[in-house]
């Protein structure tokens, strides 16, 4: 059953909220959500309270106190979105946010009972007010949840980029030190950033160092091979360094062959090879 209230009740509740805006704001600043303004100053919190009240009043007047998609509540989302996102970043869980918001309800209902408690349609109005405040809670928690999802996606992306740096070792020599467990997505990103770097730096040799990689499965090995082949197509040579003995053993047992891809034991060996490749040699400096 859809909740419907007659228009008089809607208007009554909306008028009540606007009329007692100041009182409710003061109550809200003492309890729950708005009391924890943190870095925000009190004036800003007060302004937020007033805007939220106006928005709830608007939703109530339009007969959509129960609808979190009502224009009023959309305003609330826009208004509190940043605040909620900030709290989520500081580690507040959506259920904490929900709890803080639930504390806003009691002062409003108390105020209503004190002023209008003896009216005939008291119960219907109380239900309407209660509904409006519950919807507020729902709308804000939804905002908190989507802020959380955004943060996770952002961090994943960041981790992905952070974990695959491309380092220029010398003119025309690049290295990608891979660290940690490689999954398909990460090796894909490593592959793409290495190949792009080959173009950007006109690299002749690119070193994929897997010293920091604990295990390698068939799929990741294939990605490494594909990277080497793609680099070759672009006119650069790919060297894989840092294959630890256990990994080499596992790879052989899995039937993975690196075929004719160039490999070197350590990054240092790979660098020495790369320098030779571009026609440089390293000599001990003459002491004077």
């Amino acid at each position, binding site marked *: 059953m859809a909740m419907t209230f007659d228009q008089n009740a809607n208007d009554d509740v909306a008028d009540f909220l606007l009329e007692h805006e100041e009182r409710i704001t003061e109550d809200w600043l003492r309890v729950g959500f708005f009391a924890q303004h943190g870095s925000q100053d009190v004036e800003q919190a007060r302004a937020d309270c007033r805007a939220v009240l106006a928005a709830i009043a608007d939703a109530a007047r339009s007969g959509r106190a129960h609808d979190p998609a009502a224009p009023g509540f959309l305003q609330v989302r826009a208004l509190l979105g940043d605040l909620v996102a900030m709290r989520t970043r500081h580690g507040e869980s959506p259920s904490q946010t929900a709890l803080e918001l639930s504390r806003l309800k009691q002062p409003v209902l108390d105020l209503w009972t004190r002023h209008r408690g003896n009216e005939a349609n008291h119960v219907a109005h109380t239900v309407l007010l209660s509904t409006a405040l519950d919807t507020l809670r729902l709308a804000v928690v939804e905002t908190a949840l989507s802020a959380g999802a955004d943060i996770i996606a952002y961090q994943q992306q960041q981790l992905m980029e952070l974990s695959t740096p491309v380092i220029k070792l010398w003119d*025309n020599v690049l290295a990608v030190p891979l660290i940690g467990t490689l999954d398909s997505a990460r090796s894909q990103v490593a*592959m*793409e950033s290495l*190949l*792009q770097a*080959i*173009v950007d730096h*006109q*690299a*002749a*040799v690119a070193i994929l160092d897997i010293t920091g990689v604990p295990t390698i499965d068939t799929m990741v090995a*294939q990605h490494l*091979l*594909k990277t*080497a*082949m*793609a*680099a*070759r*197509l*672009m*006119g*650069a*040579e790919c060297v894989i360094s840092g294959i630890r003995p256990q990994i080499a053993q596992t790879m052989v047992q899995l039937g993975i*062959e*690196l*075929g*004719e*891809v*160039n490999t070197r034991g350590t990054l240092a060996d790979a660098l020495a090879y790369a320098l030779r*490749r*571009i*026609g*440089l*040699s390293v000599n001990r400096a003459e002491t004077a």
Partner: protein
Amino acid sequence: MRPTGAVPILTLGDVVLVSIQVELHDELVLRLQQDLAQQVADTGARGVVIDVSAIDIVDSFLAKVLHDISATAAMLASTAIVVGIRPAVAITLVELGLPLRGVRTAPSVNAAFAMLGVRAASERPHVPPGSPVSPDGRLPSGDRGREDDPRAHDHLPREPRVREMW
């Protein structure tokens, strides 16, 4: 310079240079292949440099043609080098099972010229892997001729076998 549809072929010294700048349809590709062979035979060019840096897709048809151009050039005692394959194209070719085994590649036209033992006019020499280099890191002087330093072939395909095709 002689026109082949929309793909001009340039002859610089004893190198034939073609830079593909337009979206190629199959007929244009085949004409280019024929014209290149003719040009190499006519001029006795020691190298063919094909710049594909403007090409945003290489399907199996174009890949086969690049492969055939290389093989044809070799038969005419010339060396074909494909230059400037883009990263996304390289990844796609590898996924497709076409690592262009037997086709020589270089990152830039200058690098390709250096591989052929020709100093490109404008820039400082870019020394690609496997190009003939003297121990002091400078390009050797004088004409390398066609009997290239065997090291020049060192970085020829070293594809590992991932799938049967490869």
